[in-house]
């Protein structure tokens, strides 16, 4: 589920509860619709997402600004550098 936050070029992707194929699907879809300079924030509950988002950022050449695991969700913030 992608929700524009009202702030230009920043998108929150709410993937909580998504396990298969998983939040990386929602991130990839948001990436397809992004431009260089955009920020994508992903919320996930799938524990595998923590490693996936690191691998995704490395492979795609985008910046993983932060990834934090809270009691209810994992929040990853990415800055899109390559589009």
């Amino acid at each position, binding site marked *: 589920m992608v929700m524009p936050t009202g702030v230009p070029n920043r998108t929150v992707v709410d993937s909580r509860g998504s*396990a*298969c*194929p998983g939040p*990386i699907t929602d991130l*990839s879809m948001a*990436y397809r619709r992004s431009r260089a300079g955009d920020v994508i924030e992903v919320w996930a509950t*799938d*524990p*595998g997402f923590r490693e996936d988002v690191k691998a995704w950022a490395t*492979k795609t050449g985008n910046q993983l600004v932060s990834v934090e695991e809270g009691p209810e969700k994992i929040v990853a913030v990415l800055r899109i550098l390559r589009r």
Partner: protein
Amino acid sequence: MTRVLLIGGGSGATMLSHKLQRRHLKVTMLTASMEHLFQPALLYVAFAQSSADVTRDERQLVARGINLIEETVTGVNLIDREVTGGSGKTYPYDSLVVATGVGTDPAQIPGLLETTARYGDYHSTIAQARKLGNALSNFRGGTIALGQSTPICKCPPSPVEGVLLADRLLRRRGLRDKTRIIFFTPYPRAYPAAPMNDIIEPILKDRGIEVVTMFDVDRVDPQGQTIFSIEGERIDYDLPIIIPPFMGAAIDYRPSEVLDQSRFVKADKASLKIIGFEDAFAIGDANNLPTSKAGVGAHLEANVVARQLRGKSASFNGRTNCPVDLGDGRGTFVIGSYTSPVRRYPPSRINLLMKMIMERIYWVSLRGALEPVFSIYFMLTDPDRISRRRPPKRS
């Protein structure tokens, strides 16, 4: 009497019609085509030249007493509670169930429409699947590049099944030594769910299939025979088998905010009610639930909506149950739910047999006659129940 309107003519709407035979419900079903397609069979039409039982007449499948009308829905007005058809007729309702599925949309990716028009694909129509079967028959060696173009894929195991069945086909024809098979995927691994990937990836490696991960298709150059990714990589091919992007049905909704960017209808993941509406539901591939787009979803979601329309409480738990043909006489299943991540499900011949049985009984299962058997099966394989016995090691 409550007027229930079902839109769609696939497994979700058909199964639901059989669960709504109640005196207080007046059910009308609008389907764009009277030809009901068993979609999983397209895999075998393309990769095994199967001519099995792929379509049947919807009039023979739907429940008796249902007012079945051939009508392509063009508009859904959730505010005024009415649906408009291509014929210009309007259909008022008290309760609505959207079960319009998804379609492929190769035009979204430059060069893909031309490519699939030439080589076919195995997610659109029987004609497209036959075209791909012919392309494989005419193939004499070279590079086959197979994968999904975008991250959302109807039937998530189908890309892996396609590449494994292509490998089997080429081995049988003695062409495998002359063929390089490249499997590309937008995910970080060959199968998106890591526990299943632990099973799938060694099999791909064993069959000599090259895997290119995080390859989101940006464009295809049909003349240069190259696929380019958003990530900046390229794959050259002799035979491209590219799964097109998927989009929800081309229907104008009021309010339009109930659709997401892929035209999937936004629905509550438990109640399946369209967000903001108490009298409208979306089931199966048509909705935007965070679970696999597969027949089992349509089946179980139809059960949940039927209970609610009969005045009972029910909620969907996100259950998936996707069988995978590994192309070597074995099968596995991808089973999970909202609360239980997918686990390893070891391959076996029994699993493949179960997949084949499920496909053989499809037409009967639409009528609900086998529901008690399915109830037992779903209970025994309930991932939440299994999770309580064995906590997962990783997701």
